[in-house]
Structure formats: C-alpha cells, structure tokens
C-alpha cells in the first residue's frame, strides 16, 4: 500500500519586495527550510515517494546557487521525488530544468517527468500519469490523454497535474491551464495530485490541491501544509491527512480606532497572535497623543515578536486633546499652529501630511526643555 507525501508550488526564488530587506531575506529563506521540513517529514513517515505537482521554482532564470540549494534541501529524503514542471517553471526549450541538469544539480532520486506519457515505478507499485507544462501558457487540458492511457493492472494509477480545475472559483490561480473537474473519474485514477492553487483544497475524494508548504500571501486558504496520501491498493479510496509544514502565519488585520477602548482591543489582539507571523495591519480612525504613544510602543514590541510587521496608518488621524496641548506648553501662536494642523487633517489630500506635521511638532515640543522665564536668559 503505497504512501505518498503530496506537495506543490514551492515557488523557490520568490522575492518579497514589499517587505523590509531583512524580512524579505528571511521569508525567502523560509521557502528552503520548508522543503527541508518536507524531506524530514517524508523520512519520518517513511513514505514511498514525494509527489511535487509543479511550480517548484518561481522563475526560469534563477542563480545556480539557488538551484543547488533547492536540490540539496531534498537530501533529507532519499526516496523518489516525482516532479512535473508547472507554469512558472515550464519545460521550455531552455528552462530551469535544462540548466539544472547542465550544472549537474539534479540528484538521481529526483524524477523529472517532462513528457506526457506513463512512467512506471514498479518498485513502489505506482504508475505515474504526468501532465507536464511545456509552454508558458496552455489553454487546453493537458490531462486529457489520461483517459486513454493504459497501465499495468497491478499498479496504482496516480495522476500528477498543474492547472485550474474547471468550474471552481479561480481566484488567485496563476495560470489558465484547465483541468476537467472529473478527470480522476474519467481516467480511472486512484489519486490525482494537483498543484497551482496555493491553498489546501479538496476537489473530490481522489482529487486534491496540496497548496504551498510555506504560506506566501495574505490569504486564509489553508496554505502552509502538505498531504499524506495512503492508498490500500488500486481502486481503494485514498486516506488523506493534512500536515502543517509552514512556519509563518500570514495575517492581515484591518481595524478602526474611534474610542480609546478600540485601542485596547487591538493591543490585546496583537498580543494573542501566534509568534513569528507575517502581519499586515491597516488602521483607521483617530488617536490622541497618549494613545499614539501607546500604539507606537505596542507596535514596536510586536515587530520584535513577529517575522514581519507592516502598518498602514494613512487613515489614522492624530487628534491631540486640550490636555495634550497643555502638556506640551504650546502657548500663544504655537497653539494656533496645532489647531490649524488638526483642522487640516480633515481636508482630503492634506490629511497625511498634516498628521505627520502634527506628530513632528508634538515630538519637538515634548523633548524641549520647558521654558522658564526667570532662568538664564537667552534673548
């Protein structure tokens, strides 16, 4: 009874440009470690093979170092790694695969299925029906040939494909490579391992998307996992088991701060988030200076706890209270300036600049020495 680890969409080489460089580097690194964890998991579970359903690489022209690193990450599992090219790493005339082969990076236990024909793995009792992508974009169903393909009767029929199942809501799917929704049935497959959808998704009992092993976008779709697939024999129903592989949760929060208690709630929520997450926080509303300070502090602490924290406060207005202003000793015309800046925060187009100006002024006022008329004169 063959057992597999089904994974896909490693997207090695993906760059995270919207993050700070340090975070970006760490997140890119995380993709390698995810593969290492997959290898470890495969070994621990003693699977017969690891099925990788395309988009191993995020681009064709990666550096040699990246290629080497990727294949070395597989070393944790010495069994067969069965891979097909996806749309990002399609098997073009010249592709990341031809290069990898040229530089000798591909180890022997990696089986790259580059042509649409049956490949038998008798030692593990598997007949693979791959639907590799050999073009950047395909608009026809590359799995169509499955239906007519003959395999020896004793072997489990496993399909390996990369594309979007027709009829499903195709949000966020990269390519337009269609796959018939009933392919598993029409091709008498025991299991159809799919890639391209980055989240974990079941299509039917025998057709699943494993999703990417390490989440890489703010979508709550079960990414960051891999599937353990156990088949009792040809025709048996597969037993599917999802395993957490990913390290970082990607969480996007949008919160409104109107009253002080909102801030408390937000801070509590921040505290409760799992550590080493990737956070995207959008805040709107308004704060007084004290609250502003509290928020700054909390965000600083949070940034230290998590993999990355990005905060959008363009919709957040600074509204110092009378106490705030008094505490700053902003008398006379300084007070007028503060009032004016508050007013401008209401004006569309000037809001952000006014807010920042007010913040700067508040900062300067709070750090200067309080004026004492009787002290050493400077006039």
């Amino acid at each position, binding site marked *: 009874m063959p057992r597999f680890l089904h994974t896909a969409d490693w997207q090695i*080489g*993906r*760059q*995270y*440009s*919207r993050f*700070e*460089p340090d975070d*970006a580097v760490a997140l890119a690194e995380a993709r390698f470690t995810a593969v290492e964890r997959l290898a470890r998991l495969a070994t621990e579970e003693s699977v017969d093979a690891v099925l990788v359903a395309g988009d191993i690489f*995020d*681009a*064709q*022209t*990666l*550096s*040699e170092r*990246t290629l080497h690193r990727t294949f070395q990450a597989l070393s944790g599992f010495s069994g067969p790694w069965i891979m097909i090219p996806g749309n990002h790493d399609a098997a*073009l*005339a*010249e*592709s990341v695969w031809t*290069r990898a082969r*040229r530089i000798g990076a591909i180890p022997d236990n990696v089986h790259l299925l580059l042509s649409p024909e049956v490949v038998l793995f008798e030692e593990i009792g598997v007949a693979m029906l791959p639907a590799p992508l050999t*073009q*950047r974009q395909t608009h026809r169903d590359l799995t169509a040939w499955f239906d007519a393909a003959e395999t020896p009767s004793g072997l489990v029929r496993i399909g390996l494909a990369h594309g979007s199942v027709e009829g499903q809501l195709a949000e966020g799917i990269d390519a337009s490579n269609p796959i018939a929704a009933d392919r598993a049935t029409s091709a008498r497959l025991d299991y159809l391992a799919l890639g391209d959808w980055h989240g974990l998704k079941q299509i039917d009992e025998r057709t699943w998307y494993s999703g990417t092993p390490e989440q890489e976008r703010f979508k709550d779709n079960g990414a960051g996992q891999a599937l353990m697939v156990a088949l009792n024999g040809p025709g048996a129903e597969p037993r599917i088991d999802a395993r957490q592989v990913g390290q970082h949760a990607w969480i996007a929060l949008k919160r409104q701060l109107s009253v002080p208690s909102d801030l408390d709630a937000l801070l509590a929520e921040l505290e409760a988030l799992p550590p080493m997450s990737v956070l995207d926080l959008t805040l709107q509303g308004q704060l007084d200076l004290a609250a502003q300070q509290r928020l700054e502090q909390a965000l600083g602490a949070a940034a230290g706890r998590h993999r990355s924290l990005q905060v959008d406060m363009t919709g957040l207005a600074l509204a110092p209270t009378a106490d705030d202003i008094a505490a700053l000793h902003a*008398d*006379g*015309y*300084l007070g*007028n*300036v503060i009032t*004016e*800046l508050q007013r*401008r925060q209401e004006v569309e187009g*000037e809001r*952000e*600049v*006014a*807010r*920042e*100006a007010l*913040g*700067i*002024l508040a900062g*300067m*006022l709070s750090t*200067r020495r309080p*004026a004492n*008329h009787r002290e*050493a*004169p*400077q*006039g």
Partner: protein
Amino acid sequence: MKLSRIRLNQFQQFRTPLEVNDLGDGLNLFAGPNESGKSTLVRAIRAAFFERHRSTSLAELQPWGDSSAAPEVSLAFTWQEQEWRLEKRFLKRQRCDLVAADGRLNGDEAEERLAELLGFQFPGRGASKAEHWGIPGLLWVEQGAGQEVRDAVGHASEHLQSALAGSLGEALGEVTSSAGDALIQQVERERGRLLTATGKPTGDLREAQQACSTLEEEHRQLEEAVKRYQASVDRLGELRKQQQEVDAARPWEAQRERARAAQAQLEAVETLQAQQAQERYDLAGIQRQQGLYRQQLQDFEAQEQQLEKRQRAKEKAQQELATCQGNDDAVRQRLAQANAAYDEANARLTTARQRDHRQNRQSEHDQLAKQVAQLADTLTQARERRDSLQQLAEQQQAQAVDDKALGKLQQCEAELGKLTAQQQALATRLGYTLEEGQQLALGDQMLSGEGETLLLAEAELSIPGVGRLTIQPGGTDVADLRRHQQRLETERDALLQQLGVADLAAAEERARRANELEQEKQRTLARLEGLAPEGVDALESEHRLAVQRRDRLAAELAQLAEREGAQPEGEASADLPSVAQAEAALGHAGQALTSAEQAEVEHRQALSLAKQALAAAQAEWQILHDELNAPGRQQRQQDARDALTDLKVEEERLTATLKDRQRRIDAANPELLAQDVARFTQAAEALQRHAQERDAEITQLKIRLETLGANGLEEQRDEKRQRLEENQRRYDQLQRRGAALDMLLTLLKEQRQAVTVRLQAPLQKHLSRYLSLLFPGAELTVDEALKPETLIRPDSGQEERGDLAALSFGAREQMGLISRLAYADLLQEAGRPTLIILDDALVHCDRIRREQMTRILFDAAQRHQILMFTCHPENWQDLGVIPREMHALTAAT
C-alpha cells in the same frame, strides 16, 4: 519715574560727596568738559541699580588708590506719586536700603524689588553685564553706544514682554521667546535636511529620489533582459518544432524532382525549336531564290522597254542637229556687220580728237601772247618806281636829323626861353624915358628914348654928366640864372653844331623835310609792291618764262599745221561730231560687236553638242538592239519561268510544316517550363539553406541561452525590484516628512508673523511720530524681534531703503535714540517707569539734524524725565533748559 536727587561719595573721582538736587521732571542737561565727572555720575546711577551691593568685583568704583574706600550712592525718586529712596554702599560696610511708601526693604530683597520695578535682573555672580540690564539697558544710553540699539532691545525683550502687560506683552513674549525661535530654527533645520529653500529635494530626499530613479532604470533594463531571454527561449522552442516538423520531411527533394521533370519537358521542346529554326532557314532560302528569278524576268521586260526609249531619243537628237545647222549663216553675217561698224566709229573718233587738240593749242598760244605784253608793261612801271624809290632814300638820308639831339635841342631852347622869362621877372627892370637927345650908357649899351631894359647882372649906368650908377640886380638867383643860362646856351650851341644846323628852326625844318621824304618813300614802296609783290626781279623772271612758253607753243602749232596739211580731209569739218559723240558711238558699236561675237560662240557650241548627242543616242540604241537580238536569250527566259514555278511549290510545303510544328511548340510553352525549372531549383536550394540556417540559429541560441541563463536574470530582476520598492517606500516616507516639515514651518512662520504684526503697530506708531520730525514721510520698519531694521525715506518720488546698519554713524545715532524713545512711550503706556539717561548721545549731528533732534527731545521730555550729559552745551541751547555745570556741582559740595 522721576529722579529728584542724587548723591555720591567716595565714588571714583569724587572723594568727597557730590550732590545733585532739584532734578526737573523733564529735560535735565549736564554740561562739562571731559574728565569733569559726567560719566562718573552716570556710572553711579547705574551702579546703584545694576550692581549687587554685595558684589566684590567693583573695585573700579573706588577712588584711585584708595582701596579702603566704600563707594556710596543714594538716590531719591518718585514713582506713581510716591517717594522712594535708595541707598547703597559697596565693598566696605555694604548695604542696600530701599525706602518706599509701603515700607523698607534691605539687601537682596531691596535689590529684587528694584529689578522688578525697572525691569532688569542681577547677574548670578560677578559684575553686571549688558545681558542683565534689561529695560534700563535700553533707555540709559552709554557713551558711544547710542547707535547700537538692536542688541539692547534683544537683552531687554523678556523684560519688555512682562512689562508690556496684556495682549501686547503676550505677543511680545511669544514673538521674542527664545523657545519659539528655537523651535522654528529646529523645524527649519530638519526641513533643510530634505528640502532646499525653494522646495527642491536635497540631502536624503534627493538621494532617495535618485536611488529610486537609478533602481527603476536598472530594474527596467533587467526586465527587458528577462523579456529578451524569454523571447529567445520561445524562439528556440519554435525553431526546434519547425526543425522536427519540416526538416524531417525533407521537402527540398520533391522540389528537385519537379525540377528534373520540367527540365526533361523543356529539352523536348527545345529539340522541336531547333528543327523549326532549321526549316525556317530553308524557307528563307527558297524565298530568296524566288526573288532572284522574278527579278530576272523583270529585267528582260525592262530591256525591251528600254529599246523603245532609245529609239525615240535618237530621233530627237537628229532633229536638233538639223535645227542648229540652219542657224549657222545668220550668225556669221551678224558678226561681220558688227565688226565693220566698229571700225568706222573708231576712225571718226580719232579724227575728232586730233581736231580738238589743235584748237586747244592755238588758244593757249594766244593767251600767253597777251600775258607777255601785260608783264612787260608792268615790268617797265616797276622799274621806274624802283628808281624813284632809290632817289628818295638818298634824299632822306641827307635830311636826316637825329631825333634825340633834336629833342634835346628843343628842350634847351624851351628852357632857355623859360630862363629868359625868369630873368625878366627877376631882373631888375630899368625903364627909362629919356629926354630928347639924352643918352644913357648902360654898360656898353646906349639907351635913349623910351624903353625898358632888364638888368640881369651888375650893370653900370653912366649918366653923362652925372656919374655912374651901379645897379646890382637883386638876389643870388639872378646870378644863378645867368649861369644857368650860359650853361644852356653852351649846350644849345653844341647841339646845333652836332646837328649841323644854324638854329632850331633849321633843325626842325630839316626834320620835317626828312619826314616828308620818308612818307613819300613809303608811298612809292607801296606802289612798287603793288606792282611787283615779290620784287622786280621776280617779275622779270616771270616775264621771261612767259615769253619762253609762248615761243614753244608757236613752234608746236607750226608742226601741227604741217601734219594736218599732209592728211586728207576725209570729211568736212562741219560734219565731224564732237569727241563725246564719237566716243558714244564707238561704245555702242563695241557693244554690238561683243554680242555678235557671243552669239557666234554660242552657236558653235550648240552645234557641237547636238552632234555629240546624236552620236551617243545612236550608240546606245545600237548596243541594246544587239543585245536583244542575242541568241539564247529566249531560252534563258523560259528557264527562269520554270524554276519559279518549282520553287513556289516547295515554299508552300515548307510553310505548312512550319505552322504545324509551331503549334506544337506553343502548346508546350517553353518559357513557362524554363521558369518552372528555375523556380523548383531555387525552391529546393532555399529550403535546404533555410534548414541549415535554422540549425545554425538553434545552435547559437542554445549557446547564448546557456550563457545568459547562468546569470540568473529573473532572480536579479526580482532582487532589484525588491530594492526599488524598498527605496520607494523610503522616498515616500521622506517626501511625506519633507512635506510635513514644510507645512509645519510655513504655519509656524505665519502664526508668528500674525502675532508680530499685532505688536509692531503700536511701536511703529510711536516711531513714526518721532521720525516725522526728522524725515517727513519716512518710515522705520521693525523686524519680527521688534528691532529697528530698515529706514525708508521718500527721495524725489522714489523710496530709498537703507538697512540700519548701513546708515551713517550720525544717522544710526539718531535712529537709535528715536527707537529708545518709542519704546519708552510704549512702556509708559503700559504703566512702567521710564527714566532716560543720554550720556553724550548725539555727537555726530550736523546743525540741522541737531535742531530736529532738539525738537524730538523736547517732545519726549514732556512725557519722560531725561538726564542728558554733554561736553558741548552750546549745541543744546535750544533745548530750553539751563545746563548744570559739572564743576559748579563739584565745587558746591
């Protein structure tokens, strides 16, 4: 606040007390030379207020050399209608007592009170300095410090702020508050790190901007490189596909096959074409031969026609010859006639000419004879004239008189005459009337009767029986004249001798005669010349020549007559025509002869030609005739006809064959076949070449892609994008910060300005009031720190602006004083004490300015007590106060 009394003791030069009483409420003028203690007095007042009584660093207040002295100052003043007294002692037994209406204060408390009242502060330690002096520092002008007012305002600003209570004070406080300024400066600094004064990015912001654009460019380039790479990969895929599909089929071989087929067909057609060409050639030959035979037959016909023509020609020639010969006689006769006529005309002409010649000679001879006679006549006359001329000349010679001598003679005579007259005038006249028979002897002369004598020289008159009278004519002149007369007479005589005449009249007569002769000579000469212009000799020779000629002609005529007589008369002279006529007749005859000769020549020519023509025609006809009658001609003609017929048949045959073959050839369309061959061959070659090129391109692409692929282009590009976005975020941040700082700065400045304006107004008002007394229409602006800044004066319609610092020393002094007075007014309005002390404050004023300043001071003194110290009391007589003499004060105490 008004000081009423000042007293000092042991204070610098005043070792003994000095007291100043009865200070007035307004202007108090203190005068005195240098070193008289004016400034010491001021120093004392200042020390009383500014210096702590406990200060130890005031040694200079002690009189020189007296280190045990304890300088003392005591002041009495009124403030808000209360009397105050201040007493201070320094260095020894220090004390400070302030007595006010509401109690006494001592020591530090007293000093604090003073400071609060006047608006200044005490130093933490050491001597008091400018920054401590506050409001009094502004209003009490030290020597040589009048022109610097800005610093004083600065030092006093805080005090001014608290002194000017209410909104003014607040405003002043904010405006001059160091905190506000520092804040603005801080904001400006921060802004300056990101933006230039004109709002352009600088510093970090500019760097971020540049980094963004650089990275954008680099990213773009990488993106393009990636695209190019991808395009190359796609191309490689395409080419591979093509290679597989197309090249496997080896399409060029099919093309070659078709080319070969077409070639075979083409060759078949070419064979036919060759045959066609050959038969065409044959046909052409046949046709040519036909032509020849036809030509031959034509020639035969032509010949027969020709014979006819020749026959006609011969007959015509014969006719012409006959005609010509007929003309022969006529022509000859005409010629003979013409010749005869000509000869006759010629003979007549000769005769006429001869006659004329003889007649001419005769007349010539007659003419000459006449001429000779005339000449002889003339010659005789001329000779006569010549002789008479000669005679006259001789005569004249005899009569000649030297004109010059004659002239002189005449002159002499004239002078003598004159002299005589003079003598007579001068001479003593002796008139005498003697009686009958009486006589007188005058010298040699005997006088009797009546008469008159002139006495020119001494004369003796002897009267017989009486005696002798000696008469001396008067004057030396007489003697002179006498001498002169003698001289002249001598001269005259000489001349007469020279001329060879007896007297003048004779000389004149001779001259006249000579003249007459001359005239006659001239007349004769003229006549001679009329007769013989060239002279008689010429006339003689002319005559001689004429005679010779005449004789010659006579001889000639004789000869002619002889000759004529020998010739027969031929015709009567009367019938003889004139030469002209004869010549004309000869001319006509000549013409007739010429034409007859011409006619004859022509006739002979024509005759000869006709004969020739006939001969030729005859010959030709004969030739042809012979030819036509030659044997075998008939036969040849017939042969030609037969041959022609045969050829025609052959021709038709060939034509048919040719047409048939041509049809076959056209059907095959050899041009198209040739094109096909070329086309198929080219296609095959192109396909093969294409395949080779494709192979080459594939190889090249693979190599290039391998090389490029090693660069990791997409990875680079993504890294670049990452850096770009990072930089863009930074740029946005900085930009926002820059905008915020900009907005903040603008607002701060605006608000501050608004506040400043509120305060400037009252200050400006006071300044203008004083200024109008100095420069009508002028304005002194104050800056945000309320320090005087720019003086604007109207200058002939325009404004002249000058920064205070740029004005002359004198003008700065004046502006300084005016500003202080304006502040004093402000302070007074706010209910604060305003004592003004001017120590030598206006030293650089011209007279006019001083007058204006006097008015200003007078005006200010209406409101404030002013203590004024000067070395030049004479300058300030218009102030309206009597100056207090320092030495008087000193002496008094």
